[in-house]
């Protein structure tokens, strides 16, 4: 029996006084790939931000337990240090800081260990090659002037450098062309191969063709209404969310 990595118990989350997550339960074991699918407005991004600790997302009830520790009140940087990573749907542009400098600072912060310049350069080069990224990106300002696809690849690059225990991918597949999806999926797989856990939050199933999820969950109106395997994703793909809503909605 694998160890439980993340356990969410009856989670309720408010954003600006409005309840978005309305009692969500989820358990992720080490090495598992989970997919949460849901239509727009179902609470997907709220869940992603809440798990990462965005101060605007207020937990009104329930528990988030990571490696047997309640992390409800931890700040984002503390969660990152515990091994949680969020690939942002809309990564921020930080002009004035190069990708390399930023990642070296982040790696130092997350591991608490100084990253030697040369050793880090080597690691970065290797990871960039895996993601078929031009070396030149290392010297560019973080996300500035990057296309949507380049930003997503950069998120996956950050993930592979920071090597988290749990990677949450928020709509990482949106805005990617076929080749980029393959490269991103391979990047995710490489992290997964090291027995890390993955939580993919999406409303398409583009990425799923490449990953082999252990569980597919359907999120509707702030609750997981159905858990199954790939057949659920296929059902959504074939019949759409309206059908799913009619079938699984708990009114």
């Amino acid at each position, binding site marked *: 029996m694998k160890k439980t990595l993340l356990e969410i118990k009856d989670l309720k989350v408010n954003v600006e006084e409005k309840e978005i997550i309305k009692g969500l339960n989820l358990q992720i074991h080490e090495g598992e790939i989970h997919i949460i699918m849901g239509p727009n407005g179902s609470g997907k991004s709220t869940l992603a931000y809440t798990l990462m600790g965005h101060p605007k997302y207020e937990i009104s009830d329930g528990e988030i337990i990571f490696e047997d520790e309640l992390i409800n009140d931890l700040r*984002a*940087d503390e969660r990152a240090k515990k091994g949680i990573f969020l690939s942002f749907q809309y990564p921020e542009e930080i002009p*004035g800081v190069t990708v390399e400098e930023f990642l070296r600072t982040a790696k130092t912060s997350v591991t608490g260990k100084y990253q030697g310049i040369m050793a880090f350069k080597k690691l970065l080069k290797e990871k960039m090659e895996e993601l078929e990224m031009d070396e030149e990106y290392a010297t560019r300002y973080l996300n500035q002037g990057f296309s949507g696809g380049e930003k997503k690849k950069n998120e996956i690059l950050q993930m592979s450098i920071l090597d988290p225990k749990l990677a949450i991918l928020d709509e990482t597949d949106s805005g990617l062309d076929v080749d980029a999806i393959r490269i991103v999926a391979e990047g995710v797989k490489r992290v997964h191969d090291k027995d890390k856990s993955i939580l993919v939050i999406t409303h398409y199933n583009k990425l799923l063709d490449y990953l082999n999820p252990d569980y597919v969950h359907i999120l509707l109106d702030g609750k997981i209404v159905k858990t199954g395997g790939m057949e659920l994703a296929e059902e959504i793909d074939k019949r759409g969310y309206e059908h799913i809503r009619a079938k699984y909605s708990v009114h």
Partner: protein
Amino acid sequence: MKIIDSEIYSLPKDIDYKKEYLKFEAALPEGVILEKINKDKNEIALDYLIAKEFEEAKDQLTPLVEESYNTGVVFYLPKDVKVDQPIKIEFNMDDDNPVVINQNIIVADTASEATIIIDYTSSEGVEAFHQGITKIFAKDKAKINVIKIQRMDNKAKSSDTNIGFIKGQGQINWISVELGSAITVSHYSNYLEGEASGSNLSSIYLGDGNRKIDLEYSMIHKGPRSISNIETKGVLMDEAEKIFKGNLDFKKGARRSKGVEEEYVILLDPTVKADSIPALLCHEDDVEGEHAASAGQINESKLFYLMSRGLDERKAKKLIVEASFRPIIDKIPFEDYRQIVIDEVERRFMDDKN
């Protein structure tokens, strides 16, 4: 907002500065004059000191310096001469030499070129006092770059006036770095007098603790097609106060001239005070003056993004501030001085409660 109170701002009595401050030792091209200022001996300087242009450029602080200076350099560049090495001037005020009142005069003849770096520091806890005036004459096609770094201790006071006269297609480029002292006054006035005269002023400032910062940058366009550019990036935290006045003044005759001024300031604490007063004065129709300013706190989404990568709040803020300073710091053409500035910004953050 009045930042400088005349009662606390008077000249000290003991005004000797005995330390060596001119650090330039390389051989200079023929005809170049580089010497310490001396009331009787600098003939070249005296010619320019009495130039009528200065009469109109004076402000209330300059006569003090002109009469009471204890340091300064006179630097003359003959026609077509380029000095490749930077002229380094370093003032390090301490218990024995707490006062620097310096007058620097730089005269760049036609098509000459040089870079001057002036670095002001003071020992910890010393109530050092710096007051300075730097006057530059840049003739046709001359190019003078001046980098001023002020990183004095929090007990110190610093006031600096800079006046540039630019003839023909001459150019003066200033980089101003204001990181220290309890009170900072930093004024720049550039007179673009010729056709296609140019001046750039890039600056960064950091206000922490109770620092009071008074910045006034003026570009006075007189010649046609003259071009000026002001770019300022600042950060304020704790109880720091800042006033910024940016003046683009297009005089009669400055047809088809262009001036751009931008000021961006990051406010890290709600207790800071920041005022910006941009002014655009036009005596000609056919001129272009652009002004952009913004003052704001660090974007919450950016902060969260950085924190999600393991940076604590202070580190994340420091990163954003350094990033905003970066384009200006990168203009300093010497790695050692870039590093000095980066280290000082870092140190200011480490001391701080943010």
